[in-house]
């Protein structure tokens, strides 16, 4: 039986208990019978009067309803934005999403380095753009996202990956060191999430890169630990707040990853890293690809929301010392 849409709307402020935004419409068949039906949110942008489709009966804990599936391709943008996209983990996240057919935007304060990663992805047949972005500056963030939207369209996934460390024990922790780390790691994630929301499609995902340090703390990293722990709070809050817009928010908390900051430390104090690694149940460093693949996997799973997932070779059961 073919049904036609004779009126429709999007419920942007869903009442309790439905919470997440959806569309609804009135459909009519050739006999003039009408039904009121839910329409999955991914069709919001493609609905039109008279649109044909099929009607299904669906059950939920709240009751049984009609669901109208239009004969149209649902709008599913496959665009990921990775902040700090030029770095070790960031670039790997971009590569993994690109391999899965995502268009990639690499936002980084170092445009040249971001361009190199974008070029590399393009050379393998992917679509990638590099955008200069200082995540601590509202203007720069706003400008960057506007550029990303105009070149790639609506955003599906934002990965708040940009981060810095400026380690110092409390006595030597100047307000500048404190603020810089909080600004980039935590405030940057808030600014980028706020801006991305304007361009995010229904079904969007925000991923925050927290850290094992944010969960366990570390000597000499109080600023970094506070910021990364703050990302957990940001994750929990936004997961609740944005659910009604169909946006999921989660974080991953990696242990020591084979990337920029670790490799720097490796050069300066190899025994510190060796000592840390030796105490891990699986004694090695985490590969950026392992983090990137976890993020892709979690972003693809629609039941994942409001959690901080550690990826740490078992470090949480054997906490590190400095």
């Amino acid at each position, binding site marked *: 039986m073919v049904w036609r849409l004779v009126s429709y709307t999007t419920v942007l402020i869903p009442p309790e208990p439905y919470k997440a935004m959806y569309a609804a419409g*009135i459909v009519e068949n050739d006999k003039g019978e009408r039904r009121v039906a839910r329409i999955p949110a991914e069709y919001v942008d493609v609905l039109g009067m008279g649109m044909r489709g099929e009607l299904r009966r669906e059950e939920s804990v709240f009751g049984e309803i009609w669901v109208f599936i239009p004969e149209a391709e649902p709008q599913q943008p496959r665009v990921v934005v990775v902040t700090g996209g030029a770095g070790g983990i960031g670039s790997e996240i971009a590569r993994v999403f690109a391999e899965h057919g995502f268009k990639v935007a690499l936002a980084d304060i170092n445009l040249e380095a971001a361009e190199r990663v974008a070029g590399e992805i393009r050379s393998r047949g992917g679509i990638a753009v590099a955008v200069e972005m200082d995540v601590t500056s509202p203007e720069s963030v706003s400008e960057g996202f506007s550029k990303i939207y105009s070149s790639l369209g609506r955003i599906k996934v934002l990965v708040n990956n940009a981060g810095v460390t400026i380690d110092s024990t409390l006595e030597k922790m100047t307000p500048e060191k404190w603020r810089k780390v909080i600004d980039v790691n935590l405030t940057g994630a808030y600014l980028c999430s706020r801006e991305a929301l304007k361009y995010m499609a229904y079904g969007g995902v925000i991923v925050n890169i927290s850290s094992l340090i944010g969960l366990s703390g570390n000597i000499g990293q109080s600023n970094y630990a506070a910021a990364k722990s703050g990302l957990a709070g940001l994750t929990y809050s936004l997961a609740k707040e944005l659910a009604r817009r169909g946006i999921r928010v989660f974080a991953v908390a990696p242990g020591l990853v084979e990337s920029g900051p670790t490799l720097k430390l490796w050069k300066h104090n190899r025994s510190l890293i060796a000592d840390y690694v030796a105490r891990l149940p699986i004694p090695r460093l985490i590969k950026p690809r392992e983090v990137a693949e976890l993020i892709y996997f979690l972003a693809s799973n629609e039941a994942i929301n409001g959690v901080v997932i550690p990826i740490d070779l078992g470090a949480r059961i054997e906490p590190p010392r400095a």
Partner: protein
Amino acid sequence: MPAIVSAFSTPYESRSSLEAWELLEKAVRGVVENVEKGIDPSEIDLVIVANFSDRFGGILHSGPLALRYLGNPDARAFRVENACSAGGTGIFLAWNMVRAGLARNVLVVGFEKMSKAPTSTVANQVLMAAGSPEEILVGLPFFASYALMAKVYMDKYGVGEEDLALVAVKNHENALRNPLAQFKRRISVEDVLRSPYVAPPLKLYDCSPLSDGAASVIVSGEPKRYTDTPVYIVGAGMAHDKPGVFERDDMAAMIAAYKASQQAYKSSGLTPKDLDLAEVHDAFTISEIILYEMLGFAERGGGARLLRDHVTWFDGELPVNASGGLKAKGHPIGATGVGMAAELFWQLRGEAGERQVRDAEIGLMENHGGTGATSVVIVMRR
């Protein structure tokens, strides 16, 4: 002929400091005090309380409570619930009870304390219960059901969002003159168009607010005993449509309002041309435009033209919602219909202050429930 002999209303507010029962008390005592020649509580033999949901006010069984505030334990009392038309239904009932000789003087009081709901999404869930079961399960709050009607109407008659905006602009402007109104802020068409969508094509400023308030009137069979200038209920009607928008033959109409107004015109011997003003149920801007057509002010599809031509503005030929309407005066559900009757009482007696409509002699009120599944129309004359 039954007439209204006294009226009272609290201001409509977004968050009243009064509890629901305190609003009720104020409205019961206020309307008794306002009787010019005085009335003894024992002369009021029936109290009808209009209230939508205990999930807003936190009380049920408000009839006997109203009697306590009235001070007449020997009267009878009950609560009516007919979604947003609870108040109009109460007046309709009072009119009939008096006409039938079953009551001498009926006190009709409506109240709602919507700010009791913890969030607007909970308030919308409570309100949504007035839809059809199918709409409730699909998750269509009022604004979404009205959006579905608006979409059909706008498509059929080529009406735009800027036409809908005119209702909001007009009613906000009217509310500036009403000390009882919740919103006292002039808005422009651009303000309305810039407000965020809640369910396209409806935006935030197309919607009436959540309100707290109470209103009351006394309908009497011996009006001259209580005032020299009663306002007579000269005609009334009540009619229904199918509960769900999707079930209706014409989804761009509100047939219940059409039928109720036909009954009211017939029983009063009056026509739309005789009216000096109207208070209508503009819960959403689209509703006022459709009502113009249902009530016989405009032909089908011609509602928006009355706005563009300023016919229904304060200085127009037929001012509609001079009080600010539900849109700007506010919409404390149970109080709304009773408040419309109180407004007509003041207007037709020339007591409406700054918002007084010139030479107002005959007025109409339309109060409906849900998306128009129940409509009450009452015509009054001084």
